[in-house]
């Protein structure tokens, strides 16, 4: 039952190279501009009613530098689908899905915190896990591994 819906999704939304099944999940590789329409079709026509997460992958040295990755789940068909879109490192922007899934808002904020992806259409991209005044995006590969940005000035003498 699951495979049949995935076949239909594949025929409708992707052609050839853009779609493949890896690790048992259908992956749709789309252009950022095509994501919103494809996800609307997934939700309305194929029953993918649950927004699981949105995150990003940093590929330093690659163009486009970032992959934005969404996961959706269909509670009716019990299958998942993964949507990927490459966005450039200079101005990483992806469409916001808050209009389709309310739960996307917080997860887009987290992704914006960690990778600096700007979700166009999400009106509230304030820090959610980080704090006001944090400079940079800590999950990017070029963020120094041990760089700290303390809110409280450290004591002069540490230790007892």
């Amino acid at each position, binding site marked *: 039952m699951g495979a049949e819906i995935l076949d239909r999704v594949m025929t409708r939304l992707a052609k050839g190279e853009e779609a493949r099944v890896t690790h048992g999940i259908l992956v749709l590789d789309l252009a950022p501009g095509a994501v919103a329409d494809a996800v609307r079709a997934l939700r309305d026509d194929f029953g993918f009613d649950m927004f699981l997460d949105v995150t990003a992958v940093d590929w330093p040295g690659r163009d486009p530098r970032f992959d934005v990755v969404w996961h959706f789940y269909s509670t009716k068909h019990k299958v998942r689908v993964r949507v990927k879109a490459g966005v450039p490192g200079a101005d990483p922007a992806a469409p916001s899905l808050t209009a389709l899934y309310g739960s996307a808002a917080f997860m887009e904020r987290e992704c914006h915190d960690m990778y600096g992806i700007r979700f166009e259409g999400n009106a509230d991209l304030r820090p959610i*896990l980080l704090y006001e005044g944090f400079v940079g995006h800590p999950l990017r590969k070029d963020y120094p591994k041990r760089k*700290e940005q303390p809110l409280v000035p450290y004591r002069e003498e540490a230790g*007892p």
Partner: protein
Amino acid sequence: MNGRVIPIEPAGGPGKSAAFEYLTTRKDELIGWARKFSIFPYPFVTACCAMEFMAVSSTPYDTDRFGAALPRFSPRQADLLMVVGTVTHKQAPILLKVYEQMCEPKWVMAFGVCATSGGFYQNYAAVPGIDRIVPVDVYIPGCPPRPETVIDGIMQLQDKIARSQHLIVNDRF
């Protein structure tokens, strides 16, 4: 802010005498003995070490034997700040505020390796040891610490309290 062990008033001056020195020592001992068995902990519990904290507080290990059983959930009523778990940079201002709300005399215990040194969180998010934020009296290693380690830490803190000088001991007392 650093006055966790409050030095006695300098004994110099007109009231100084051998008898006063002797009595002061004995009274420090007495008050130290009383204080070390009436620790009121404030559990600043942030992470998984909380499970170990519950284990050590409850019947099989029973910190009540050390007078340290009753957690006060207001820092104003507590004299031992137990920082149990990872403290992030976002949380550091809260920890400092809690510490500053506590009345003297006060002691701080770093419970577990994250509170002690940050543990394996050497990254953008975690404070590498709460002693960067507040002064710490006793460090308890372990991830999480064994109950025996915690009890050892409490006993070391008791020794420290017993050996301290106490401000309320002066020549009028």
